[in-house]
């Protein structure tokens, strides 16, 4: 069951991610990116990272991609403004290199290796990856990064408003 779900989610992630590369129209790219994030949330559930899966759907698919779609519609590029897709030999070489590299990593990774530790231990711990477990680490041990995050968001808001205000 778990293996079947993994292959469904993994194929979904890769196919939807490939659409982002191949589609020329950015709105199709954005929508397939949303699909990719949903499949990724499924993969996080399989890794028993329940809170991260919810975050992925809420923040990425819900908020970040809304921003992307808004900007794409704001610019509303016509066909000629999109720029034509150039198929050059250099791009072909680059794509081939990427495929070879990923294939090599896959071939290396799938060679049976004796892992020192039992790999399925975490699945049996009650509450692993749940809201309370992650919150415990977040609010007890990483207080400073948490507060710095708010500063990061503040800087992002202020700079984005300064850059974008009064444009278009």
């Amino acid at each position: 069951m778990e293996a079947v779900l993994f292959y469904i989610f993994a194929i979904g992630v890769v196919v939807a991610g490939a659409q982002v590369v191949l589609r020329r129209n950015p709105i199709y790219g954005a929508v397939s990116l949303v699909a990719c994030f949903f499949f990724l949330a499924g993969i996080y559930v399989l890794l028993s990272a329940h809170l991260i899966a919810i975050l992925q759907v809420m923040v990425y698919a819900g908020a970040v991609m809304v921003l992307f779609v808004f900007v794409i519609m704001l610019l509303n590029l016509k066909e000629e403004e999109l720029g034509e897709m150039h198929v050059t030999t250099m791009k072909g070489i680059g794509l081939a290199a990427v495929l070879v590299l990923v294939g090599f990593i896959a071939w290396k990774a799938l060679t049976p290796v004796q892992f020192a530790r039992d790999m399925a231990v975490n699945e049996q711990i009650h509450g692993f990856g749940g809201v309370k477990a992650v919150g415990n680490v977040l609010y007890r041990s990483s207080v400073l990064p948490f507060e710095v995050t708010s500063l990061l968001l503040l800087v992002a808001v202020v700079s984005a408003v300064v850059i974008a205000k009064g444009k278009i």
Partner: protein
Amino acid sequence: MRRVDTPGTGGYFPRPQTARLKANDEGIAMDSYLTPYLPILVLLLLAGVMCVAITFFATVLGPRRITNIKEAAFECGSPTTGDPHARHSVKFFLVALLFIVFDVESVFIYPWGALLRDLNGDGLGWFAYFEMMSFMATLAIGLVYVWRKGALEWT
């Protein structure tokens, strides 16, 4: 988690003895941590079946008599005006931006709210409270800035 000094079968962190996976009658290990997601699976299946079924039956059963008037763009009964591909205002971007910030804030508040009672039990109640309050105050500075800058004015 108890750490042992001599690595045994499970390395330094031996497999806990309490929460074993339960096996059902066929001997297949149940993915117990996935069972809460069963309703979501049912919902997805129902939604998919509905989409496919409605589209399928509409195309197969429904009559198709296409005329020019039916194909024309319809806008509240009056003739369409203006370019349908007009550019939108940048105000939409600013609203989406603020939405992202407060979405992230709510995402942080949710585990904090679930945990506050536990933290209070450990004597960390006020610490956790002021931790979150300073987080929200920092984001509120951003809101005040955007407000004073006039980015929320919809004119």
